[in-house]
């Protein structure tokens, strides 16, 4: 762990980087980070373009995105190893997982470029009981929807245009995955 980098990080991101986190605390920390920034600026009477458009904000968003990508990769891995997927579904799951691996690689590169330390995957993920193909599809749908929501919510706060461009591409992949999974589960896409 690069403790020097950690020292310069917003308080709310320190635990995230040091791996002491979970999906819930991650979301609440992101909300907390934004709130503090916004309230501070509003109280001080200064205006800036957006609450998250800072290099630290970009790093926080990238770390959050990496957390979700690690989780998605692990979920598809669990699905593939379960032997519960039919051949056609397995093929799609492997392709979607490879998109997430691609995202992971790009995000790690961006985090390092910005001087941050990428987080590692959790040692163990709890995806609940996976007893059949539908359980796996439901899990994937839930995670993809979470990723679409996260990227959509945070995209406009990205300052670095290269990071934003990547974010738009990743969002596009997540929407495609979600749409396909919705279709497979009979959830209307309109």
């Amino acid at each position, binding site marked *: 762990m690069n403790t020097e980098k950690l020292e310069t990080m917003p308080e709310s991101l320190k635990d995230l980087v040091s791996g002491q986190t979970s999906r*819930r605390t991650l*979301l*609440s920390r*992101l*909300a*907390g980070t*934004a*709130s503090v920034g*916004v*309230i501070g*600026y*509003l109280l001080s009477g200064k*205006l*800036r*373009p*957006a*609450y998250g*458009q800072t290099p630290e904000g970009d790093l926080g968003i990238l770390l959050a995105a990496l957390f979700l990508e690690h989780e998605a990769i692990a979920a598809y891995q669990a699905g593939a190893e379960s032997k519960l997927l039919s051949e056609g579904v397995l*093929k*799609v799951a492997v*392709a*979607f997982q490879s*998109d997430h691996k691609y995202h992971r690689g790009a995000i790690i590169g961006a985090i390092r470029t910005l001087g941050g330390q990428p987080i590692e995957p959790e040692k163990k993920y709890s995806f609940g009981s996976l007893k059949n193909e539908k359980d796996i599809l439901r899990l994937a749908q839930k995670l993809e929807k979470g990723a*679409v929501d996260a990227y*959509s*919510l945070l*995209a*406009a*706060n990205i300052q670095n*245009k290269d990071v*934003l*461009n990547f*974010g*738009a*591409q990743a*969002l*596009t*992949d997540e*929407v*495609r995955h*979600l*749409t*396909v999974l919705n*279709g497979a589960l009979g959830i209307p*896409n*309109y």
Partner: protein
Amino acid sequence: MHSEEQKSEHKVVILRRQLLYLGGLTMAASALAEPMPGVSAEQKFAGDLAILNVALGLEHQAIAAYDAGAGSKLLTPDQLKLAVSFQNDHKRHRNVLVKFIRRFGGKPVDPESKYDFGTITSATDIVKLAHKLEEGAAKAYLTHAYKLQSIEILDAAVPILVDEVRHTTVFRQLLGLSVTERLTV
């Protein structure tokens, strides 16, 4: 009696709402703060306005294409329902784009007086046309959205991109095309 997990989920929902609300406040504030002294909104966001007007042209075209599809009487009730829903998305996008173009001092482009969508003799022709236009729109947003300077406009463009990709993917499935290919520009 709520479990700890339910309470925690509830807290996250509230925090997300708070985040959205605060985001909205800041964006409203940033809109008031624009433009910078001595620079008109039109000058500062000339690039944004150009992108928005191109996007508006695509939305007008999509709305007209769905009108042509619906008016053809070739669609099944389910296909028609889908087309109407997607067209409504495009009408919403159009309205958002017109609002931003006007607010930032630009002039929204009007729809063409006539669109040539080629020969439409079957429902498949309509689905192919819709797929082509939706994929074009998704690629246009993907190519240009990140260049937007106004955070407020960017924030409005994101859900539009999400819609276009969803539409494109649905049509790819209907046409039996691969859904594992990445949309690249």
